Every structure is written in structure tokens, then in C-alpha cells.
């Protein structure tokens, strides 16, 4: 009865109500008021907090022993030894000099052979005499040189995009691009086999990461449908959750190409934004080297952002992102590797411009590269006891044991022995190195063979024979 006070109740009526209320009610209310006062003035509840004396504090400080900053590394660690023994003198060209010995180089990622090109070096030297070596500042503070602007314009024109943005380090390109767009609460669908740089970008973005099985579109579909169900459940949240799809054009860890047409279909079906990382496919795939979009004949406008590094096929330094102006411009203020780092040294940017000129002038080299890749793939698959994974047109081949054992260390050691045997016979190879405890999805141990467009058929034959001999030497010893 007294529960709800109507709006029209006024002072007189209230006074009347108090007088007319039953006694038990008034006593109950009085007790409640006394209880409130008691609570207000009594001490707050504090669980038993131990207060240490000064002496105890000093003792704790004396006692505490931290772990050593870094664990001990034995001097004969195989990777350390490999690094110390394989120091190159001179240019790591198709034929290079290691420890005074001349070997054929199938380890450097010099796919188009631009490493030894004289016109690139001449362009770099010309820029050196104009700008010096370093750019002495980030892009915002007098570090923007006209060569940077020219390179960005040329890259955008080459890729038929509205705008490109240049970074000074290949790894930092995709690792800064992803956190610039994807924040806490957004969802990123990413292929399991992506490279380490993308993995670091994903961690830095603090978004929800959903890995799907490598190149498995059904798995991706399943994750998207799950996300759709979640969206239907909480539509308000779905309206502000951005969804991204991150893939690589050519996977560095597996050597195969992503199914881009199907991915673009998924993009329109489930409203995802695609970021393609083309470090190994830019300057390699496609009739004119424009990457995986040209390889499949897809319009570049379907891709929201394309990132690539200039350190592999192009033989320069740094990396770039390209896409529509409204997307790429955002990175100029929020890409950490762009705003807070010094810009690319101008002579390296000049070298990259010259590389682009060479690629545009001679599109025939891509056909030649593809021929070399397919040839090497065929020949490698014929070697006994070993197998090649990846696409035949990929310029990196992952060459591994056809029957891997359960012990990764054992396999690693066999592969090291194979590379050492090959080195003695005049061929430089390297096992693919990974940070084994940090990688999300560790592939099997393998030797990473890089194809160079400048290799002639005879040279390829010689090299493959050396590989076959080394494998036989090591595998027959162990078996």
C-alpha cells in the first residue's frame, strides 16, 4: 500500500500518512535508519593485510634471485656454427665467394637476378652523390625525399592502384599495416601458414584471431558461418565489428599460392576485407610480375590492401603497401613503422626505381623464371629419398625428407649435413630457419632452394646433380 508514492503526493498528505501508519511499521523503519547510520560510521571491511616490517622487507630484497637475462647457449650450437662458417665475401650474386671458395648460390632470394645489375648500382651511386646515405629523419620531419615520392607514385602506377606508401623495412610493412586498421574487438580470419611478420602484426593488433587450415576454403567457410551466427545473436556488436581476411600471395613457409578467386568470392559473400601479403609473389607471378592478382586475372580493386617487400625479387630494401587512397592514407598517421621510424635511405629507393624500370622494360624475364622454376621442381622431385612441396611455378622450393622422423632435431641435423656436403661440392644451400618456439604453425624441416632467373640449363643440371649426390651421401650413411 505504501509501496509506490504517486506523483501528486504532497507534504500534508505525507505527514498524514506517517501519523496513520501502524506502529510495527514505524519501529521497523526506525531500526533500519539506525542500522544505516551504524554502517556509515563504522570502519570499512578490510581482510587481514599483513604489514611487513622494514627488516623483513630488506630480507626479501636480499633473498630474491632473478633468472639470468638469457639462457646459456653452447658455442657449438649448429646454427651459430653455420653462421660463423658461411661468411660471404663480395656480392651474393649467382656465383659467390664463401671462405675463399667460389660456389653457385641457390640460397639468396635473388629471383630476378637484379642483385648484380650494374644499372641499379649506377642509379644508387648517383643518388648517393646527391643525398648522402641516410635520410636523417622520419617521414614527418624532413625525411621525405623526392625519390620516396617518386617511388610511391611509380609503384602505385605499376600496380594500377590509387596510392602506395613506402616503408623502410620489409618485416615492418605488414606488421604495422594490420594494427593500423584492426583494433581490439575486430575479427581477423587468417591462414595458418602465414609468415612470422603477419603473426606479429596480429598480436600487435589485439584483435580476435581465427586461424583456418592452410588453403582450406571449407574451413574458412565454417568459421565465417560461425561468425555470422554470433553476429545474429548480438546484432549491436556486429555493427561495429570489422572483419578482415589476411592471406599471402605465395606462402613463404609452404611455397604454394593462395586460391585468390575463391577468397574474393568469400569476401563479397561474408563482407570481409582482404589484405594480401605479396612479398614472394610481387615481381614473380603474373605475365608482367604484378603479383597474384595478375596471375589469376583478378582486378586489383577487389583487394583492399596489398603489402609487399622490395627485398626479394626487386633487389632493393624496404616494403610498400598499395590500394585505394582512403585506405592507404590512413597509415600515414597510424602506421607505427612509418611514423616513428627513419625513412628508407634515398639511394636504396633510387635502386628500387631502377629495378622497376628494368621489370617494366623486360617482361620476358617472368616467363623465363617460371620455366626455371618448373624445371627445377621436376628435377628435384626425381631425387630419391627427398620430396619437394609447393607449386611448380613458385621460386622457392621446400625440399625435405620424404620420410620425416618424429625427431625434428634429427631431421634438422640431416639437412644441415646435406647443405654442408653441397657446399663442399660447390653449391650454397640453406635450411629454412624458423623460431621453433614462437611460430604458430611450424612446417616440417626443409631446405629452402631459391631459383634465380639467370641460371642456365647446364648450371641447373650441375646443381641438381650436386644436390642428388649430397642427399645420397648423407642418407646412405644414416640408413
Amino acid at each position, binding site marked *: 500500500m505504501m509501496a509506490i508514492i504517486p506523483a501528486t503526493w504532497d507534504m500534508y498528505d505525507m505527514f498524514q500518512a506517517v501519523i496513520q501508519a501502524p506502529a510495527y511499521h514505524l519501529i521497523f523503519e526506525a531500526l533500519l535508519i539506525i542500522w544505516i547510520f551504524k554502517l556509515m560510521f563504522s570502519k570499512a571491511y578490510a581482510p587481514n593485510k599483513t604489514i611487513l616490517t622494514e627488516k623483513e622487507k630488506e630480507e626479501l630484497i636480499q633473498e630474491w634471485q632473478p633468472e639470468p*637475462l638469457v639462457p646459456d647457449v653452447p658455442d657449438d650450437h649448429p646454427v651459430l656454427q653455420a653462421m660463423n662458417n658461411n*661468411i660471404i665475401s663480395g656480392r651474393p650474386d649467382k656465383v659467390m665467394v664463401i671462405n675463399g671458395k667460389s660456389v653457385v648460390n641457390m640460397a639468396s632470394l635473388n629471383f630476378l637476378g637484379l642483385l648484380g645489375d650494374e644499372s641499379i*648500382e649506377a642509379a644508387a651511386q648517383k643518388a648517393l*652523390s646527391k643525398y648522402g646515405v641516410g635520410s636523417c*629523419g622520419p617521414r614527418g620531419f624532413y625525411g621525405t625525399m623526392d625519390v620516396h615520392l617518386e617511388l610511391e607514385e611509380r609503384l602505385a602506377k605499376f600496380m594500377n592502384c590509387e596510392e602506395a606508401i613506402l616503408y623502410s623495412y620489409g618485416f615492418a610493412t605488414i606488421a604495422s599495416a594490420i594494427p593500423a586498421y584492426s583494433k581490439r574487438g575486430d575479427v581477423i580470419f587468417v591462414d595458418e601458414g602465414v609468415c612470422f611478420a603477419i603473426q606479429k602484426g596480429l598480436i600487435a593488433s589485439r584483435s580476435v584471431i581465427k586461424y583456418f587450415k592452410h588453403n582450406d576454403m571449407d574451413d574458412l567457410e565454417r568459421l565465417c558461418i560461425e561468425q555470422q551466427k554470433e553476429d545474429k545473436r548480438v546484432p549491436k556488436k556486429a555493427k561495429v565489428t570489422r572483419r578482415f581476411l589476411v592471406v599471402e600471395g605465395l606462402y613463404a613457409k609452404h611455397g604454394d599460392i593462395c586460391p585468390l578467386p575463391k577468397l574474393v568470392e568469400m569476401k563479397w559473400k561474408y563482407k570481409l576485407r582482404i589484405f594480401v601479403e605479396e612479398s614472394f609473389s610481387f615481381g614473380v607471378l603474373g605475365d608482367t610480375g604484378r603479383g597474384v592478382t595478375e596471375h589469376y586475372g583478378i582486378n586489383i580493386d577487389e583487394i583492399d590492401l596489398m603489402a609487399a617487400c622490395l627485398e626479394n625479387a626487386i633487389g632493393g630494401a624496404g616494403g610498400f603497401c598499395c590500394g585505394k587512397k*582512403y585506405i592507404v592514407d590512413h597509415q600515414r598517421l597510424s602506421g607505427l613503422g612509418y611514423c*616513428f621510424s627513419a625513412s628508407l635511405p634515398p639511394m636504396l629507393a633510387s635502386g628500387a626505381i631502377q629495378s622497376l624500370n628494368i621489370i617494366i622494360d623486360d617482361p620476358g624475364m617472368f616467363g623465363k623464371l617460371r620455366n626455371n622454376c618448373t624445371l627445377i621442381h621436376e628435377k628435384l622431385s626425381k631425387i630419391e629419398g627427398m620430396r619437394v612441396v609447393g607449386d611448380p611455378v613458385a621460386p622457392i622450393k621446400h625440399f625435405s625428407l620424404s620420410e620425416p622422423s618424429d625427431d625434428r632435431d634429427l631431421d634438422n641435423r640431416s639437412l644441415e649435413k646435406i647443405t654442408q656436403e653441397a657446399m663442399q661440392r660447390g653449391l650454397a644451400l640453406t635450411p629454412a*630457419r624458423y623460431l621453433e618456439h614462437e611460430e604458430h604453425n611450424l612446417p616440417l624441416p626443409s631446405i629452402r632452394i631459391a631459383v634465380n632467373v639467370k641460371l642456365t640449363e647446364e648450371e641447373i643440371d650441375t646443381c641438381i646433380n650436386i644436390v642428388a649426390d649430397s642427399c645420397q651421401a648423407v642418407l646412405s650413411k644414416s640408413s
Partner: protein
Amino acid sequence: MNGLIHKTNGVHKNGKSHKTMYTEETDWRKDYWESFEETPLLAAVFTYICYGLVVLIGHIRDFLNDLGLLKVNACLEPRIPGFVPLFSTWESFYTRHVFRRVSDVLSIPVCGVPAARVEIMKRVTHNYGWSYELHKDERSTMLNFGSYNYLGFSQNKGPCYDAAKSVTHKYGITPCASRQEMGLLDIHAELDSLVAEFLGVEAAFTVPMGFATNSMNMPCLVSKGCLILSDELNHASLVLGSRLTGATIKTFKHNNMQSLEKRLKDAVINGQPRTHRPWKKILIVVEGVYSMEGSIICLPEIIRLKKKYKAYVYLDEAHSVGAMGPHGRGVVDYFGLDPKDIDVMMGTFTKSFGAAGGYIGGTKKLINHLKLTSHCSVYSPTMPPPVVQQVLSSMKIILGKDGTNDGQRRIKQLAWNCRYFRRNLHERGYIIYGNKDSPVVPLLLFMPTKLAAFSRECRKRDLATVVVGFPATPITKTRARFCLSAAHTKEDIDEALKIIEEVGDLIRLRYSRLPVPDFNENDIELIR
């Protein structure tokens, strides 16, 4: 009212604690002087009014745009049906309405070597900052106080240039492979040992990008279960690196040793929060010279605290290596300390050596571990050869190995320039932050409008400076920043001071109410 809250002569309480016992013989505190004057109340009030007005006008423009009366000319995101917008409207509000108005003071294109004088290209906007047009043929030469060129090695002539040129021919411009995968050239090995000798440590290794040196190597040192104590004004690369480690991060007040000691004590005594298990490691992350404040870290105090509480120190000397100390070896040399006391010495080659990239120096055990587990050893190429050669030549000059005293001349010239420039600015009554010996000089402007005015007026008079505002600095502390260089002669500095005085009188920058400090440049002997 002069904004003064400290009773001593304007010296900011920089953590010097009169209660802690510090029993070294040469008390470094006698020579340590820095100032961070309080913001005058009127300046702060007007700054807020400025921002408020700009934000209000921005909202009105957006409102009119929604109504269709006014076309907000921007590369706005097109609405694609079904897709969630990429940028939230608040995020782009600041860029569209506040930053865009003053965007002509940033990213000014340069078309020559960034030495003591730099040639810039004219850039015109016809639509109030939405887009720019480059006028490639209109160039002007300005006095360069904006580039990081502390020892003046940014040159396109001379021994460094000759060496870099021949290396480009001999080695090419990129090694195309990572350190663990056949990317190590003999000059890289030479550089590693020279850097170690320069710093006075056992071993060192190099990374092609300074930012990446921090973000790729910190995760190899600490992990979950460790504690990182980082200064509140640390650089973005240190913040990103700390986040990527997965460890717990706590900040302490900028350069305040009492705040740091309190945090250390709490950490060691109480352990991890909630479980109270002891921390695995504690890493103190600080910089040698802070480029936005101009302050120098109290390194002797940090070493004392580190020894007492058994923590590890990570020192980022991006702005101090080459620029500080009687031999140019950084802030450790400046205080005369032992480099072996610092666990991880990190720095960059961009600022004082005229090159690019970073390095980490320490014990052989540390460097071997980093060579095996660093992300850059495995996943990205090693330094480009011409850049390596530039570092080799410049470092040899600083060490005096080329047989001349050019290195010492540059170091002394820089130290003299710092004192002379700072003393003169203090005398003229501007608010300058930082230590008397730091080569970075921030001059406080306070209002965002003065930021644009200062930069544009200086550019009209051919002086290139850097201006920084919110959000890189606190909202009331917009500043102009001058980077001194050994390439600047006394005449260059006098010219700059004249221009600054002219502009300062025009836009009224004499905010300082403190007495003029008594340091000067006379105790530094220049080598002619």
C-alpha cells in the same frame, strides 16, 4: 604569478633524493642541470579555448555536411553496403578538422642532402590541406634545424661518401637473405666487432631498422611472468616491443628515480599481483636522451638501483650514441660509467652516423642468444652494404682510427653548439625544456595556432624546424624542436637565433619567468 612551484631556482625535481645515500666520489649531481618550467596559466587557458573552437567548428562543418549544405572535401570512405565502416567517425574527426589545417608543416619534401643547409621543394594546396601539389622546379635552401644529424655525417662528399660508393659497386645494394640463411657478408662481421669496440662491450649485432631493433629483440629477453618497468615517455618502438613480450608493464614517472625505486621495491617484495609469486626477471627500460623532452636519464642512479634490486637495464641510446660524452660513446661515456653495468645497450645509426639501422651490444652470451632467437636474424635480410660502410667509416672517424682528429672536432663542436644555443634561448626568455647538454632543444609554444604560425614564419625566413603537437605531446605542451648538429657553425646558430627572435616577437613566445641559468659554453674547448 609565474607558475613556479619549486623553491630551488627553477630546477625541476628530477628525482634527486636528498635522503638516499650516494657515496660515489665524483658526485655527478654537481654538473647535472635540467629545467622543465611550469606552463603559465594564461597560456593553458588559451590553448584549451583554441582547441575547443576548432573542435566546435569541425562539428558544425560535419553537421552542415550531413544536411548537404556544405561539401566536406575529403577522400572519405565510401559506404559499401553490408561492410562495417573501416574508420570510426571519431578517429577521422581529428585528422579531418584539426590536423588537416596544419598539415603543411609536416612531411615537407626534401630534394638534397640533409646537412646544415637543406634544399626543400615547394608544396601548394588549393583546398586547405586536403591534397597537395608538388612544384618540382621551385626549390629553396634553408638552415636545417630539423634533421637528426648530430655529428654532421650526413654528407655527399668526403671519405664516407667515397667508401660507400666503392662498396656499392663491390657488394651491391642488398644481401637478399637473412642472417641465419646465408645473408652474412664479411663487412657485417667487421661492423659487429667495430660496434662492440666502440661501445666497450664484449659483442654486438646489427639490425637494418632502428624501430625494429626494439620491437624484434625485446621479446627474446623477457616473456610472461616478468616485469618491465618503463619510463612513461618512452618511444613508440619500446612500447610496442614491451607489448609484444607478453610481460607485465608498469610505468614510472619520467626520469623520476624515487618513483622507480618505489616500483622496484613493491615488485620485489610483493611479487606478481594476486599470486604473490616472485617475478622471474625485472627489466628497466629507459632511453639515454629523450627526444621530445630533451632530458638526459639519471644513469648513475639507475645503476645504483639496479644493483640493489638485482634488476636488468635496457638502455636505448637512439639519440645519445655519438652525440654525448667526451668520446662520443653515449650517455655512459657522459657520466663516466662502466658499460659492463648496463645489461643491454641498444642504439641506432640513423642520428649520429648518417646511416640507418640499429644495434644491440652486451655480453657474448646475450648476443649469441639474440643471434639465435631474434626475429630479424631469421625472417628479414641483413643491413644493406652501403649503409654498413657508412657506419664503418663514420665510426672509425669518431674513434680517431682514420688518423685525424676530425671525430673529436665534431664532438666538441656539437657540445659547444648545445650550450651556446641553449644559453642564448634562455637569455631571450623562451621556455626551453631539458638538460643543458642535450642536443635536442624543445621550445614551448603551447597553442596549436602558434605551432602553425611558428613553422610557417620560420620557413618564410628560411629556417627549417620541427613542430610537434597533440597527440604526440600533452595537449597544452605543443612545442618546436631544434636538433643541433656539429655541421652548424657559430654563424649558422647566430642566424637561427636572429630568426627565432624575430618570429618569437611576432607571435609572442617569451613565457619564461625564471631567472637566467648560469651555465655557458666557455668550458668546452673547440678544435679548429
